[in-house]
């Protein structure tokens, strides 16, 4: 027995086992990074579960992050996607589970499928009733282009600037779609920044809204929107798809999928499909998207100054977008007659965090005037923001890809 314990073979085997185990990797050079990333993933899980910060997405993202940073698990290999494209020649031999799931992100499938579901859940009625909302949705895209320049000032490459700027659109699938094409190495930090700040919209927006508007402006009551017929709601997605896809073919996948989902909902003849894309398909894709995006947040790609810069620029993007919508609404009021003025608070809903941003407009408006109901008015710029950010993504893709 003693001789067995003293044998080199056993000692070597035990040492080999310790070295190949995940615990051993923590003590290897640079192993502390894994520990930090696991702690960060657990913190994000805490935010998702306890604080309910966008839990539907943050939970799978955080868990994907946890899986990818478990040393030795080998579930995601960034080298298979190095240089911005899939290395098919070595893919099948080396790929892990998350590598296969990540193909949906890399090939731009998941964001588009999510947009089908988003379209099926969105009511464009307030936007059709008040087309001026498109202007507010456009103004809120200021955040994208201001941050695009801000990122360049911080030393990011132009393609990275485009990916970081799109955080200002406050639209998770669009951010992922664009980043997977322009700067896939930044996908993890950008997705986490986008979804975290989207969850923080009720915290970020109100101080900016109050700072840029007067009490009198916040109390403005808006006239009731006209009723929109079913035919208009059916024609709307078809027209938007045709116009935007012809003008900006690079925005066609996102806008086309968004409008397909909406058409399914509005036409009323494919209820089964509409319910499926709103629920089952959406939920399945969210799981795959969340896990695979979270998995891109490896220690090497996440723990650097770029991530810090992205987090700072993300909040700048949201703030600029909010300010852009508010200021344009104020500007429009200079030309509108009394009684037709718009409450500038609905401008902040131009960032496309649907329907969170519209709810914030409603809440802030009701604090000033409890009899004021801005929700439906704010939904117009809110859904216009979705279209606007998809258009902006198409433009950045056309410029930078």
């Amino acid at each position, binding site marked *: 027995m003693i001789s067995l314990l003293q044998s080199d073979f056993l000692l070597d085997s035990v040492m080999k086992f310790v070295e190949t185990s995940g615990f051993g990797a923590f003590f290897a050079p640079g192993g502390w990074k894994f520990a930090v990333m696991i702690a960060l993933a657990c913190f994000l899980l805490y935010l998702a579960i306890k604080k309910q910060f966008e839990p539907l997405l943050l939970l799978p993202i955080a868990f994907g992050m946890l899986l990818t940073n478990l040393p030795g698990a080998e579930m995601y290999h960034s080298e298979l996607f190095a240089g911005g494209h899939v290395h098919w020649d070595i893919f099948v031999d080396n790929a892990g589970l998350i590598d296969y799931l990540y193909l949906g992100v890399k090939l731009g499938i998941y964001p588009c499928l999510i947009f089908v579901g988003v379209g099926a859940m969105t009511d464009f009625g307030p936007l059709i009733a008040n*087309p001026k909302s498109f202007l507010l949705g456009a103004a809120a895209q200021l955040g994208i282009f201001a941050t695009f320049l801000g990122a360049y000032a911080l030393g990011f490459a132009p393609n990275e600037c485009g990916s970081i700027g799109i955080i200002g659109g406050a639209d998770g699938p669009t951010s992922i779609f664009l980043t997977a094409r322009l700067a896939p190495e930044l996908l993890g930090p950008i997705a986490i920044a986008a979804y975290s700040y989207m969850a923080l919209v009720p915290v970020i927006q109100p101080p900016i809204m109050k700072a840029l508007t007067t009490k009198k402006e916040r109390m403005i009551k808006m006239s009731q929107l006209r009723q929109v017929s079913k035919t208009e709601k059916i024609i709307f997605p078809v027209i938007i798809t045709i116009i935007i896809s012809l003008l*900006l073919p690079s925005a066609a996948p996102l806008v086309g999928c968004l409008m397909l989902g909406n058409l399914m909902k509005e036409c009323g003849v494919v209820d089964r499909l509409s319910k499926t894309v709103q629920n089952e398909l959406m939920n399945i894709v969210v799981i795959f998207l969340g896990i695979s995006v979270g998995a891109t947040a490896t220690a090497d790609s996440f723990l650097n100054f770029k991530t810090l810069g992205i987090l700072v620029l993300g909040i700048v993007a949201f703030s600029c977008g909010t300010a852009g919508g508010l200021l344009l609404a104020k500007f429009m009021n200079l030309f509108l007659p009394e009684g037709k003025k718009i409450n500038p608070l609905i401008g902040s809903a131009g960032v496309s965090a649907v329907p969170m941003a519209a709810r914030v407009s409603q809440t802030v408006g009701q604090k000033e005037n409890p009899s004021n109901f801005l929700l439906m008015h704010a939904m117009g710029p809110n859904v216009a923001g979705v279209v606007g950010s998809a258009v*902006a993504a198409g*433009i950045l893709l056309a410029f930078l890809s």
Partner: protein
Amino acid sequence: MDKFANVGWPEMLLMAALGFSVVFAVLVLLIFVMKAMGWVFTHQKKAAKAAVAGAAAAEEEHDAITDQEIAAAIITALKLYKSNLHDQESEMLTINRITRAYSPWSSKIHGLTQLPERK
């Protein structure tokens, strides 16, 4: 990134300005399209409402002319009906067997309060 080697501040500023302008231009175009669509639909609704209102007015006018004649006809008919009532009543009395289609919902067998069978 070699592709962006020649990109400097002037190009970035131009891209940002151009990008923001294109977003605005596309969405402004959509405003005009939606306004036009809204105009067509509200116009159609108004025309339909006007047509319905016109038809109703014409009907009212027509009613005013014939109201008295119709009232007279109804009163005459009622008078005749009431005065002739029972005139041609059949004197033959029959007992008709009433049969109802079977339905488990109306079946007493399946009722909760079944009466004891008489033997």
